[in-house]
């Protein structure tokens, strides 16, 4: 009897999980479906079965070259993530293993910078970029994306590092490891799942960042967020084309997410159960 109840519970839980997952995924699914409709079909109300036309994809590619935007997105998201990790690993190490009196306050202060609306600093940042010649430059935007995601990266790494026993690092130090060797050969390999999931999450955040990437670029450094934005129209119904552009923009990160979901989940639940 107990077994039957457990199976029943399991079935209900699985069904509930599927329903929740489908609900969350549905907007993306419907975007993909709409991208295979003609413009007339797209405005004719709810319909899950498209005619399967690829005319929107042809039109989108003809109107603006996808590949250049794609390469910029890859460069910016991967570049800003590597840069963020280079800064955040030492920072998180010192906070986790050598906390000072103000460590907690610094962590909170770092997080508080995420609470301010980005538009509040648009003008100062724009002026700095203008004066340093960084407007529409990949390097400038990479640094910007690194800076805005840094609090999250530091926080995540700090949480993972705290799970690693300090004694192991002490043992390494007793064996004569330098600080550099301690971080590179002892700490980093042990925190790989945490670092990997932080990296993946940061790539996703940088890929989807749509405030600064649109406002600080024009043609050279514009990533896929600018590509999608160019298909939104105030006068004219281009929903199928907009959906096709969105599908093309989210496809790489979605596929990457699917392939790495094991690492992502492992990393995000790292240290959750002791």
């Amino acid at each position, binding site marked *: 009897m107990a077994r039957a109840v457990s199976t029943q519970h399991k079935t209900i839980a699985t069904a509930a999980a599927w329903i929740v997952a489908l609900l969350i995924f549905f907007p993306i699914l419907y975007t993909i479906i709409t991208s295979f409709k003609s413009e007339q079909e797209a405005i004719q109300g709810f319909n899950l079965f498209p005619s399967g036309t690829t005319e929107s994809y042809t039109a989108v590619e003809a109107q603006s070259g996808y590949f250049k935007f794609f390469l910029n997105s890859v460069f910016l998201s991967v570049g800003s993530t590597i840069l963020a990790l280079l800064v955040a690993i030492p920072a998180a190490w010192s906070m986790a293993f050598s906390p000072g009196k103000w460590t907690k306050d610094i962590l909170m202060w770092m997080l508080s910078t995420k609470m301010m609306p980005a538009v509040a600093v648009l003008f100062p940042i724009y002026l700095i970029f203008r004066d340093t010649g960084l407007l529409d430059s990949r390097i400038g935007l990479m640094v910007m994306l690194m800076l805005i995601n840094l609090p999250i990266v530091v926080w995540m790494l700090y949480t993972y590092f705290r799970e690693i026993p300090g004694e192991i690092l002490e043992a390494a130090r007793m064996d004569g490891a330098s600080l550099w060797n301690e971080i590179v050969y002892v700490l980093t390999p042990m925190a790989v799942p945490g670092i990997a999931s932080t990296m993946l999450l940061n790539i996703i955040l940088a890929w989807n960042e749509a405030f600064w990437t649109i406002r600080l670029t024009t043609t050279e450094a514009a990533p896929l967020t600018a590509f999608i934005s160019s298909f939104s129209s105030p*006068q004219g119904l281009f929903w199928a084309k907009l959906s096709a552009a969105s599908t093309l923009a989210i496809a790489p990160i979605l596929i990457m997410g699917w392939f790495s979901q094991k690492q992502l989940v492992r990393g995000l639940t790292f240290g959750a159960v002791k």
Partner: protein
Amino acid sequence: MKLRTLTLGLLSASTLAFAAHAESITIATVNNGDMVRMQTLTDDFTAKNPDIQLQWVTLEENVLRERVTTDIATKGGQYDVMTIGTYEVPIWAKQSWLLPLDKLGDDYDVKDIIPAIAGGLSVDGKLYAAPFYGESSFIMYRKDLMEKAGLTMPDAPTWDFVKQAAEKMTDRANGVNGVCLRGKAGWGENMAFLTAMSNSFGARWFDENWKPQFDQPEWKNTLQFYVDLMKANGPEGASSNGFNENLALFQQGKCGMWIDATVAASFVSDPKNSTVADKVGYALAPDNGLGKRGNWLWAWSLAIPAGTQKADAAQKFVAWATSKDYLELVASKEGWANVPPGTRSSLYANSEYQKAAPFAKMTLDSINAADPTHPTVKPVPYVGVQFVAIPEFQGLGTTVGQLFSAALAGQTSVDDALKQAQDAATATMTEGGYIQ
């Protein structure tokens, strides 16, 4: 072999040298049908100007407005040509943010630009932006439903006729709404429509001393008429409908009448996208017998920011994109019906265009019926038909738009919305130093 390598090397070097010599100009624009078409036709420009390369930045309207405003105010120099509207041109020109367009060439024929449009883009007699396409607003209506209702739409109807027709055409059991009007909050959304409508009711935003006028009976009449008309005959959830939402409803046959931009005529009459393409009639925007009609005036125009380093190349491009030759180029490639409307008088004298675009005459009449310097019945201290060309208007217009949208949604009464609008406008104008 060596000779071939050398020749190839020289060729590549000369190509690189040419590419390095070519000047590149960056054009910021919106994703409207006519703009997208222009991007596909630029081979003609680059063939005529091989030393100029074009780079496009296409953005959603609000993002574009914010981007170009930031860039021009900080002299960021990111753009050489900007697509802006009749609202920005007078304000930006007065700030010396734009270059006057005085080098458009001898064969450009500035006098051919429709006077009402040119007036909205000029300051002190100087043209600061060249119109790419111009629009007014008018009534698009279903001829079949009008006939079924036993009515005939006059060329220049009154608001009372529109109300009467809407009541007879509404058939909610069959999903037909008598009238579809903008309700989505925003200075360029519901306030564009309502400000133009209020002109025909004799209302105005400010008196000659910049005192807000929402406490006057003309505004009460306007808003009450609009809310009553829409509640009885408008679509469900009208307070979130803008241009695109109403376009979708009209194309699906769910609206008897729709009063909106003249540019919509080419969409609703296109059989590829519209289910009612062959049943659409056009009429001037309604009036109340006070001498002003409820139609607006807008032109998406190309302007050159004062900070550009490539003013000559930019002027050449602006002259090409807004020339008579460009209209003929579009006609030869895509037909006369797809020519950007509302900019040149000669287009409306063209018999081929008149044949291809049945809405041509009504569009021109609508544009000519709008006067940006005398938009309403009483005198006003501002320029603009459906907006007030002062920097504060974007914020204030959107605030008032939210109040009026709430009145349409039934969240607040017409009287409350007007009272709050009066308070908001008074505060803004006092803060801005317009009223002491």
